């Protein structure tokens, strides 16, 4: 199957710094339609009927979320665009923001009409600082055209923390706090930024909205699978010939994405959804990609047969331990203990009880962690135990050879970079 570019339809065909170009290609027609011809309730009902779901990884119904915020009674409501794309292997939002900032602004303006927000923020990760200027200029151009009369948009830059992509941590960060996750409930649509009703949507989710308003819910829901409508934008990296950003209809297979489009050869496994993503063996390449199966934020890393799965999970765990916010014990301590175990396995100091310990710890973290980071930190661990158990067994049984191979200096330099 070829790519199906809806979210990315204008990427590459417009000058991303010229609002006139975007308008000439039909831009802002969805917003004008929503503003002049639709009531907030009909916007929400259209988005709900379309089956649009959150593209940041959680997959919650966008229309339902908006309805909750619409119904909440408060003097102010906020709209936040989550552009804190920090998932390992994710760079799709960077591509969108670089190539079609007006599409995002249009989606945000429609969302603002729907929920009744007067202030919106785009939370941009510090690593994408180079986009701050272009994005601010795009917002200014839209303001000059008179599109921002009902709601203003500000670009708010983060300061380097993966966890701030988690919605409650993101709100804490805007409030000037440590980016730690909050206890839920209450959920943001009723009690979010500064305690007021807040909607947080991913960049890609908002990009879909103008297309739904223009073409209708039926057009959108005709694409995809049962619970996953429309398309998904993926970023593919790792052991592939053509790393990049691809948009496919929901339900397309992993093979189409990783082999046909990205040119992977000699695959051993694929990790889908960043460091907390599933690790699937190459034998599962015909799995369709959707919320029902595997999707996450669309970050896909290909791993070829020369790679060592324990090294892959060790690297994931290093990231998760570093980025755990530290608020809840299962995640803060659990990722630390797991990192220690993977470190020992890598040094040839593994023990045959380690697999059982990893399994028990992963299951405990999955049910007891405060937010998605700690809950999903278990995923690559459990998947690697499920599909690549032999690699653990071999590693441990050959520990004494590994130790003599690594030796003194080599061993030290390995430690320095992990």
């Amino acid at each position, binding site marked *: 199957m070829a790519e199906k570019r809806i979210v990315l339809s204008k990427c590459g065909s417009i000058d991303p710094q010229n609002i006139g170009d975007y308008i000439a290609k039909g831009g802002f027609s969805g917003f004008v339609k929503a503003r002049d011809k639709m009531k907030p309730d009909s916007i929400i009902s259209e988005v709900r009927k379309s089956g649009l779901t959150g593209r940041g990884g959680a997959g919650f119904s966008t229309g339902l979320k908006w309805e909750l915020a619409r119904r909440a009674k408060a003097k102010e409501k906020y709209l936040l665009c989550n552009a804190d794309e920090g998932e390992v292997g994710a760079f799709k939002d960077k591509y969108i923001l670089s190539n079609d900032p007006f599409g995002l602004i249009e989606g945000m303006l429609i969302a603002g009409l729907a929920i009744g927000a007067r202030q919106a923020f785009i939370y941009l990760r510090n690593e994408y600082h*180079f986009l701050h200027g272009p994005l601010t200029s795009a917002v200014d151009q839209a303001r000059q055209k008179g599109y921002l009369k009902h709601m203003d948009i500000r670009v708010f830059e983060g300061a380097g923390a993966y966890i701030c992509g988690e919605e409650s941590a993101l709100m804490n960060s805007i409030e000037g706090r440590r980016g730690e996750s909050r206890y839920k409930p209450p959920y943001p649509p009723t009690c979010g930024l500064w305690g007021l009703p807040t909607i947080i949507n991913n960049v890609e989710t908002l990009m879909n909205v103008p297309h739904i308003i223009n073409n209708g819910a039926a057009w959108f829901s005709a694409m995809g699978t049962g619970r996953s409508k429309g398309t998904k934008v993926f970023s593919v990296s*790792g052991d592939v010939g053509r790393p990049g950003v691809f948009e496919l209809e929901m339900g397309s297979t992993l093979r189409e994405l990783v082999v046909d489009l990205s040119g992977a050869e000699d695959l051993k496994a694929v990790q889908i959804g960043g460091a907390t993503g599933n690790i699937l063996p190459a034998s599962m390449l015909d799995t369709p990609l959707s919320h029902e199966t595997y999707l996450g934020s669309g970050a896909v*890393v290909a791993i070829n047969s020369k790679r060592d799965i324990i090294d892959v999970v060790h690297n994931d765990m290093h990231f998760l331990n570093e980025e755990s916010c530290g608020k809840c014990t299962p995640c803060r301590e659990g990722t630390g203990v797991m990192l220690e175990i993977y470190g020992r396995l890598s040094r040839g100091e593994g023990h045959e009880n380690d697999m059982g310990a990893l399994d028990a710890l992963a299951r405990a973290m999955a049910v007891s962690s405060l937010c998605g980071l700690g809950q999903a930190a278990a995923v690559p661990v459990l998947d690697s135990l499920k599909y690549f158990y032999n690699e653990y067994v071999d590693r441990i049984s050959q520990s004494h050879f590994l130790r003599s191979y690594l030796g003194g200096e080599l061993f030290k330099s390995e430690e320095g970079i992990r």
Partner: protein
Amino acid sequence: MVTSNKEISPGSDRAGLLPALKDTVSKIGSLDREAMSGLAGQCRLPLNEVFGVATFYAFLPVSPAGKNIIRVCRCLPCHLKDAQAVIGSIQKELGIVPGETTRDGKFSFELVSCIGACDQAPAMMINDKVYGNLTPPGIAEILKSF
């Protein structure tokens, strides 16, 4: 570039804290006690709160940093494309290991989480600029340009 969002935050003095911390870093390179005390006063917060916020974020150094900060990505896509070689080259060129600053104060060297340049792996940032598809000779060139 950084604007305070104080005026639109209902009844909270601390809303402008993160932009103010970032602004200070862009002006003086890192956050010292004096700068943090000043911000604590402005936001009507105890100093330890400001310190707590600053130390949470990777891009807010609280100890003196080099004039240029090298941030090498160590996450999976870069790791698979031999980020170790990149780290090794920088160590060799500058004579420092990750976490250190050169004696002349020109460079700080850090290993960081995914910077979203996975299609150009291995990649690094120097200050705000991303450098991708790195090779050891390429790195030497880039460092010389500073």
